[in-house]
């Protein structure tokens, strides 16, 4: 229990950030929740519709469900690229003797390039007329049969818009995980090695358990960022062709600002908030159970 005076000082220091958080995060969420019970196009009178928007979203909107499953696919690809890639590169980095800084900088580079530049870059890479880098590479290595307009093919477009987002932040998570790996006590590793542990055992029994808290944080970060992914798919394909790369976020944006259906867009926004909370809860639950086991 804190003495009175220090409780007051804690309050004084906590209040400004809490207020800011309330205004910038909680207030808009509350406002969305409020708006989700209305039908409003911005210039008409607001009409209270009760739960009608939720009923429409969950039972009568095929694009909503399509976007939801697309968003899950997008998330899966981003997570594999970001966390899997980051863990792999970070582990390799620890065993490198030279050029670590160079590799780190190279991997981190995409995270500092503007999103718009990345989107345009990848539109060029995936292009078929004129031939882009990816199709050219496939042609050179004799896989010409795989050449295709990656962003116009409804079977490849979701992966094609997810990859740049995954690629972009691999470096960032790699840095975090690398820093965590450096903190693994050397004595423990050496002791294990003397006991005859293989590299794989060393990784699974010593290194990974040690970086678990950092791993949980990065997983939560990557998942929430992935669920909120918007800019790259929006810029590259605008959700198309058809709804093949439509995510909940791009659909919500279009519903609000193209269809001017602010009430329904708020309903989707509320769903995204709930979805993010559920995702974080699930991650914590699963990892905790694993740790307890």
């Amino acid at each position, binding site marked *: 229990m804190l003495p009175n005076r220090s409780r007051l000082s804690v309050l004084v220091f906590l209040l400004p950030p809490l207020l800011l958080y309330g205004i910038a995060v*909680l*207030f808009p969420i*509350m*406002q969305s929740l*409020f*708006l989700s019970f209305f039908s409003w*196009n*911005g*210039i*008409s*009178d*607001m009409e209270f519709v009760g739960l009608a928007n939720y009923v429409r979203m969950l039972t009568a909107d095929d*694009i909503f469900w399509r976007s939801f499953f697309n968003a899950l696919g997008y998330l899966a690809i981003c997570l594999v690229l970001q966390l899997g890639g980051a863990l792999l590169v970070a582990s390799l980095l620890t065993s490198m003797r030279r050029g670590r800084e160079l590799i780190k900088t190279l991997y981190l580079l995409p995270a500092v390039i503007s999103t718009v530049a990345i989107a345009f870059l990848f*539109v060029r890479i*995936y*292009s*078929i*007329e*004129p031939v882009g880098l990816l199709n050219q590479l496939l042609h050179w290595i004799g896989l010409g049969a795989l050449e*295709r*307009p990656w*962003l*116009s093919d*409804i079977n490849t477009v979701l992966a094609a818009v997810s990859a740049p987002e995954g690629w972009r932040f691999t470096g960032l998570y790699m840095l975090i995980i690398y820093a965590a790996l450096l903190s693994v006590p050397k004595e423990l590793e050496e002791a294990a090695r003397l006991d005859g542990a293989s590299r794989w055992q060393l990784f699974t029994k010593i290194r990974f358990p040690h970086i678990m808290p950092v791993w949980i944080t990065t997983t939560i970060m990557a998942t929430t960022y992935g669920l909120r992914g918007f800019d790259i798919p929006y810029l*590259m*394909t*605008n*959700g*198309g*062709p*058809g*709804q093949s790369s439509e995510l909940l976020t791009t659909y919500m944006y*279009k*519903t609000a*600002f*193209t*269809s*001017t*259906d*602010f009430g329904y867009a708020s309903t989707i926004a509320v769903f995204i908030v709930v979805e993010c909370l559920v995702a974080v809860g699930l991650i914590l639950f699963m990892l905790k159970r694993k740790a307890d086991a």
Partner: protein
Amino acid sequence: MKKLFRTAAVATAAALALAGCGSGGASDPSNVSPTGEVKAREISWLLSRPADGAVINIMKKLAEDYAKDHPGFSLNLITTPDRPSYIQKLETLAAANKLPELFDTDATPFAQQLAKQGKMVDAEKLLKSLDVYDDYRPSALDYQRFDDGSLHMIPFQFELEFIWYNKALLQKAGVAAPKSLDDIPAMCTALRAAGITPIAIDGQDQWPLERYVAYQPFREAGPEFIQKLKKGEAKFADPAGQKTVEWLASLGKAKCFQDGFSSQGYSDAQNQFTSGQAAMYNIGTWELPSLATDKLNPTVRADIDFLTLPTTEGSVTAANEFVSPSGIGMAVNAKTYDPLVSDFLKFALTKYPSEYAATGALSPTTNVETAVPANATPLYKKALEMANDLGDKQAMPWDTQLDPTTNGRLQQELVLLVQGNITPEQFTTTMDSTIAQNAPKFFK
């Protein structure tokens, strides 16, 4: 915690209620001659036109001239050339009741709602009071009108849309320029067999493909089809609707558009045509400076020609009736309309046509003659002359007609239909149910 929650909810409700109360201007939109003193101040024009284009350059100059006699006046031009971004900006500002003195909009259902709420000055009365109404081309004004015939936007352009084609490439494939819309699929097959891309299209911006869906119904059933379709009174399942759906599917099957067209942009498509890789390209007279002057690639310059929208057998509209838009129009905010805005518009609108025609573009008025640039090819003059012989009807671009949700869905489904990802039947069902669901909200 519960208390905090309740307070936040009340605050939200209060904020929204206050925002709602602020809507609606006090001015009368039909009062076009406000009385009082002209007090110079800054006025703003929210617009969606190229930043260094003729309209902006001329209006900037006219504003400077006006400011010489009215110290303190200035015209703040806020442009967002990318149309989807612009529309979002406009709609958001309209929702916040923060529209500036002048703003651009097409004759969309959203704009019609603004007009119904009295937020836009009656442009017909305004132009008549400034004594310039009769100078305008009737079709330039008609393009800006809502379905009820009311006029709330002022045009600054007049364009004609043509199908440009490369004679040499058609000859190489052994086909003639299409005489009917129904000739196009077979033409595409022949061009593809000769290794030529038949039609270059900017798929990324979506409106170019949406033009194609408008053509068959305009020939088959006239301009009324889209007016009925958008309200749900006509359907894609009707004969005129089915004709366009089947035609688009056949364009897709004949691989008329370049591979991967849906992710290619405006300049990609134009480059394909001007570099001699694609045989056809559908674009308006705003591209005359690139297509009908010595700026055009010399290797294709002698081979380029254009045709107007082909007719079909039994067509109810004539060959001289096609897409002739007068571009996005300028609306005048009724709430901020005062003697200054009125006086400036009088000054600008009387001087604008001659300045605009001098740049080589078609003026929305008939009282000036367009100057053909010195570096023009013979096609330039030929294109301008088409404006003198237009029929009474015009094909409206569907993106300005449909409600925004239906429009967005149509743009998405069109790509799928042309790519062969969905069948004509699926397209018809999806679109008819989308219209049935969304149209009533906008056209009640």
